[in-house]
């Protein structure tokens, strides 16, 4: 039990909000510079941001789902399957009773998937990953079966639901309009900020609001309430929690079921996405896994996973809206980022990290210089590539819940 001495607890820390603001500001500046220097104005346009918001939403919900489950100590790789169930449930309820019913339908079916995962992992102690994979397989099977049974007679297509009415979109007026006018003036930085903000404030649906609201809500519930403390204790040291009278099994069940519900909500977000007809087989396209990756990227914290989802949503939005050349432009932005980090680390005398950042910057710039556009096939999978890179660089600084994935049985403490 070597209590490794860590950084001095008395050293004043930079407040979290200052760090968040500076990171966001740095990101905006980098994007703005990149857009200006490469002429890829799509990088900061309202349209790109809007697309990014809609694309990040399912990832965000899945990531939040992962958070709730893993904080309770249960690895949830079945998010993908629960999300698939959610898309079907949303479509089934949605085409009959409208978009709010769709939201509810997605939540309910996702939660059922979560319940199954909880039964397998918590009650029967099945390996969490095994159960997750099995649930994904089962989710695919069940939705296909049910679609054939219930959708095909109406839509004439077993892979597709009848049309589901979506939410009306709305914008925050008059701010959105004035931002649009600033954006069209093409002024450095100012127009970029206006474009990014404008995208966040227009073309909204209730689900976007719910999604962004759930981030602080998850934080408050998990870190500032007694319920959250108990739930997290199950992920950190269930034996200790049990010895203090916490009903570990119950909390794990609750965590995993909420996790499934959130994944299902992510499925509903896909079904209700503007421009979507409704349920479409294979619609999730692995977003459940990406959500999990976003959560890991975010170090098992709500703010972090929002950042991760935003990154994935943004890169996805850029390549969908603006194509390979804009993604190519992002390489330039990545170079700036790497150089910036190198400078910061040199200032902090962290030579090795600085050197790695500098080399990485040089490599990325080399790629940027040698090709004109990122092939479509790669641009589409940029988020996955980014995930892999981020994990390779940062995984050792991550702090997952201590008892995650471990077998737990009641009354076996000590």
């Amino acid at each position, binding site marked *: 039990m070597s209590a490794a001495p860590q950084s001095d607890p008395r050293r004043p820390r930079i407040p979290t909000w200052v760090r968040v603001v500076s990171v966001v500001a740095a990101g905006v500046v980098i994007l703005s510079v990149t857009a200006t220097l490469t002429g890829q104005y799509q990088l900061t346009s309202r349209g790109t941001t809007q697309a990014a918001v809609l694309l990040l939403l399912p990832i965000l919900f899945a990531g939040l789902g992962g958070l709730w489950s893993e904080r309770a100590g249960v690895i949830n790789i079945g998010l993908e399957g629960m999300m698939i169930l959610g898309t079907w449930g949303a479509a089934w309820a949605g085409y009959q009773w409208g978009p709010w019913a769709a939201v509810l339908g997605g939540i309910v079916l996702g939660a059922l998937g979560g319940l199954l995962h909880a039964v397998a992992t918590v009650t029967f102690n099945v390996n969490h990953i095994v159960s997750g994979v099995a649930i994904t397989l089962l989710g695919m099977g069940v939705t*296909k079966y049910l679609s054939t049974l219930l959708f095909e007679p109406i839509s004439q297509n077993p892979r597709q639901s009848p049309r589901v009415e979506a939410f009306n979109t709305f914008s925050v007026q008059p701010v959105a309009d004035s931002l649009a006018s600033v954006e069209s003036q093409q002024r450095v930085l100012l127009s970029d900020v206006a474009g990014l903000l404008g995208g966040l404030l227009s073309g909204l649906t209730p689900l976007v609001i719910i999604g962004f609201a759930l981030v602080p809500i998850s934080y408050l519930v998990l870190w500032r309430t007694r319920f959250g403390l108990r739930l997290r204790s199950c992920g950190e040291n269930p034996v200790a929690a049990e010895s203090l009278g916490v009903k570990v099994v119950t909390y794990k069940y609750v965590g995993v079921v909420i996790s499934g519900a959130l994944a299902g909500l992510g499925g509903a977000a896909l079904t209700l996405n503007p421009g979507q007809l409704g349920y479409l087989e294979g619609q999730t396209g692995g977003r459940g896994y990406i959500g999990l990756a976003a959560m890991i990227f975010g170090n098992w914290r709500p703010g972090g996973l929002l950042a991760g989802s935003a990154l994935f949503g943004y890169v996805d939005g850029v390549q969908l809206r603006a194509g390979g050349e804009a993604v190519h432009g992002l390489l330039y932005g990545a170079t700036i980022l790497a150089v910036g980090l190198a400078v910061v680390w040199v200032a902090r005398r962290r030579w090795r990290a600085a050197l790695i950042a500098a080399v990485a910057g040089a490599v990325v710039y080399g790629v940027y210089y040698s090709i004109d556009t990122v092939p479509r096939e790669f641009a589409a999978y940029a988020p996955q590539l980014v995930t892999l890179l981020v994990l390779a660089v940062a995984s050792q600084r991550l702090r997952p819940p201590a008892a995650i994935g471990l077998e737990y049985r009641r009354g076996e403490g000590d």
Partner: protein
Amino acid sequence: MTRARTVLLPPALAIVFAALLCAVALLISGDSPVTALRVMVTQVGEGTTAVDIVNSGAIYYIAALAVAIGFQMKLFNIGIEGQYRLAACVAAIVGGALVLPPVVHTLVIIVVAAVVGAVWAGIAALLKAYRGVSEVISTIMLNFIATGLIAFLIRPDSFGVLQGNNISTAPIEPSGHFPGISFGSSGTLFGMVAVAVLLGLGYWFLLNRTRFGFELKASGESPTAATAGGVDARRMVIIALVLSGAVAGLVGLPELLGRDLAYTLTSPQGYGFTGIAVALLGRNHPLGIALGALLWAFLDKSALALDNVGVPREIVLIMQGSVVLSVVIAYEIVRRYELAAEQRRVAAQLRSAAAAEKVAS
């Protein structure tokens, strides 16, 4: 006796349970489970079904072996999917470009496939060993990236050829084919089925008779104890994942070398996930996996037959999903029960021995 019970009971229970579940689903949707079962059983004797089952089973078998190698040391190679597809694609490109004498040509293709699978898994292996990245996440990401890479590789301006409205790699010359065994109207057995059998034997031998197999199992059971016992954990992670990837690289070959002869955008997908399911069914045992693979293939083929009599074919997917979930639960319950029974037995024997000693002294 008890051993047979431990091994056979869980899967039997799981299959019965899953079948019941499906029967209920069918009843609810207004179909007859009895008809469905009859159709499923009788289809085996019809047409090429039996041979098809063995052919598919061999593919699933190779995929499941690849998964099982990782499972032995509790590594989850979810990336079989990406590894085999990329391997098949590159092997098809290389095989289509080369002109070599028969046998050598085939061997070269097989080796290329294994190497590509190993390299793709090797990325995840290195990330795990040196950066501590969970192989679960990295292999999932690599699956996506492989899809992109394949799409890029078989673009007509890379290595692809436009054939009708499908893109494919250049076809492999006959010298590179792996000849099958023809059963006339009952179909042709892939030659790679033999390779699958050999792989199974090799897997068994490696695991139970060699130092590597022992170290692999020890690392899976207790990484800390293995380290103290002189097993280099990092090296084992790399070897296990690379080996798993190499085997995974062969998954696409039975169809590539025995039927398709080129890799196309529409080449089959999903064998990687099937492999995971089959490895779970067979509990990583070479024979168990073989049975699981055949069961899975049988269910697959049933889908077509069921469709013909108007039963929704997707019922098979539910059956497969629920079999996997219930079998892992069943294994877990039996495992726990057996360990408790073993402890009781040891304690009881020791008590009676102690009592006998006391009487003697």
